[in-house]
């Protein structure tokens, strides 16, 4: 479970569990997992990253697959962990974990072969491709394929769904003005589609875009794609008070 989902939007976690269980998986959430280490990794603190990665490797020992509802956390485990270790034993363990780690959409479609879901969502949605999922893990068609099976849902692509939203982890607070310019462009791109809902696969990006849209007074609702696919699209959207639909 990613730290952001744990802290800010547990519904995404439950949606992911539901989708995995419906596809026939037995899901466990190891209680001693914490962060995957990206904040330290991307700030140049390799020693801390290595310590955290070792902890994550321990926590996920013995599972067939490790699935995260996030491309950036999934990519961290599957693409960046092995490079952290020089020690051959730890490196081998990291490689083993990497080979079992997946982003949720790609796991459902590419590994489990899921082609449709039984969900309903009445609305016009647009989908933002989060950077790590897209460019590190090749997540592009998988969510769209599943969304196509959602009843009542219409997808309107924005002009540049593959351009970064400006979140970038600590980037958005280290360089707030540049980040703001980037997310401002994104929100204009979203508005131009006429969609009433924005979906993506990473909560960091979603919080960034939701925060910007709401600051601008936009009525676009923002959700994680898993919530809609799991038929949980009727809960309050990100940044909306409970009871408001």
């Amino acid at each position, binding site marked *: 479970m990613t730290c952001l989902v744990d802290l*800010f939007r547990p519904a995404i976690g439950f949606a992911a569990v539901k989708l995995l269980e419906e596809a026939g998986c037995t899901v466990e959430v190891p209680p001693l997992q914490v962060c995957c280490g990206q904040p330290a990794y991307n700030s140049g603190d390799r020693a801390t990253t290595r310590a*955290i990665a070792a902890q994550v490797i321990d926590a996920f020992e013995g599972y067939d697959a490790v699935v995260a509802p996030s491309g950036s956390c999934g990519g961290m485990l599957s693409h960046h962990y092995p490079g952290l270790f020089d020690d051959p034993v730890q490196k081998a363990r990291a490689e083993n974990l990497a080979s079992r780690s997946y982003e949720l959409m790609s796991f459902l479609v590419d590994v489990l072969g899921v082609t449709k879901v039984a969900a309903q969502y009445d609305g016009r949605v647009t989908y933002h491709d989060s950077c790590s999922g897209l460019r590190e893990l090749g997540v592009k068609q998988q969510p769209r394929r599943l969304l196509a099976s959602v009843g009542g849902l219409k997808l309107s692509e924005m002009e540049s769904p593959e351009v*970064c939203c400006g979140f970038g982890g600590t*980037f958005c607070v280290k360089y707030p003005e*540049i980040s*703001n*310019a980037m997310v401002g462009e994104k929100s204009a791109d979203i508005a131009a589609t006429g969609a009433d809902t924005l979906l993506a696969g990473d909560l960091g990006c979603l*919080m960034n875009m939701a*925060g910007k849209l709401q600051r601008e007074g936009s009525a676009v609702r923002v959700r994680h794609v898993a919530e809609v696919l799991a038929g949980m699209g009727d809960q309050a959207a990100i940044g909306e008070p409970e009871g*408001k639909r």
Partner: protein
Amino acid sequence: MQSTARDFKDNAHAALVDPNLQDSLAKLKVGFSERRRQAAERLPEFEALRDRARDIKNHALANLDFYLEEFERKVTALGGHVHWAPSAEDARRIIGELCRSMGARTVAKSKSMVAEEIALNEHLEALGIAPIETDLGEYIIQLRHEPPSHIIAPAVHLTKDQVADTFLEHHRKLGFTRRLTERNDLVAEARYVLRQKFLDADVGLTGANFLVAETGSSMLVTNEGNADLSNTLPRMHIVLASIEKVIPTLEDAAVLLRVLARSATGQESSAYTTLNTGPRRPGDLDGPEHYHVVILDNGRSAVLGTEMQDMLRCIRCGACMNHCPVYGAIGGHAYGWVYPGPIGAVLTPQLIGVEEAGNLPNASTFCGRCESVCPVRIPLPSLMRHWREREFERHLTPRAVRQGLALWSFLARRPRLYRRLTGLANRMLALFGRAQGRYRTLPLAGGWTRFRDFPAPPPGGTFHAQWRGRRS
């Protein structure tokens, strides 16, 4: 060139509020990337060519001393001279002396980023030699006393109106008193003004895209043909290039050219590809009497054999900046030195020091778009991360970041404590944000809430708390 990379944040602010710049950037963002995409699509083997281009450059870098010496042998055999410049200052001195040996008063230059790197124009002017830029973009920014903002399109930050005003201001004294508004008229006027200067120049100076070891040729691509005037008309031709430009063979050059033009502008090939192989031989119709190649190191050889070596594969196509959302927001000048964009963020700390340029590799979301388009597959985000690691090791990371990180990593290594604290934070944020569902301001989160609302978590506890509740 004097660096302002230290002032990156201020530079970026100025760029974000400059309407002319924002206008120009809006065009650049769609134009270049769309043309590259189409060019790549039209060539089925494009991805395979990128692999070959990467391998060629890797091979050349692994045997750099051999190919550089081979190149020197060939040039010498042709009657030319190779000069080795360990530092920028050495390069300036060598070029200054060469110009003096010809009694030069003017030097016709075609675009060269290495010349910018060593601040050649200032040096020549100090010697009383006038550098004449023959590339249109370079000419425009020379008139405006500005550095280039892009490695292949130096004046891309300017609107057509700004160029019109600049020409009117500078060409009036030459009798051009009408303010031009059409692109073609502007080009024609510049051509007219520049042509005579080409003819008068004593020395021609060009950069090089590649130095071909096999033949001793330097290879240069342009879209204006201006380089051909810089290297055939004057009596002396000086080529200025950095060490990593050397490649083994002409066949290798052919592969690299195919990915270069497509990545840069979406063209199949640039309009002019020029090979210079030594001075004029008996019987040649034209060409310079004297031919010199100045090869600059300036800190590059220090990255050979390190985790940073990949940066030397760069063929300066500009694709990484054309696709970079940060460059697209702030343009090239904000980076504060010669090389902007992702490659600048990697190269600049090496060339002028990470103390000076530390912001550059940090100002990236690691979105990876640069790496996905780089024709020689340089892992730009990883290289930026390596810089961050070196900064961290040397305690250059800003204090607030270090302290936040230390606290966070303390907690992240104590899962039970972490769980208790996040549970508390979750409940507080949910409680106080309940009515609105979000925050307009939040203590310690000013960087976020200055421009964005911060979503509050819904009531009910963290995922882990709820999960425990459900499963027990």
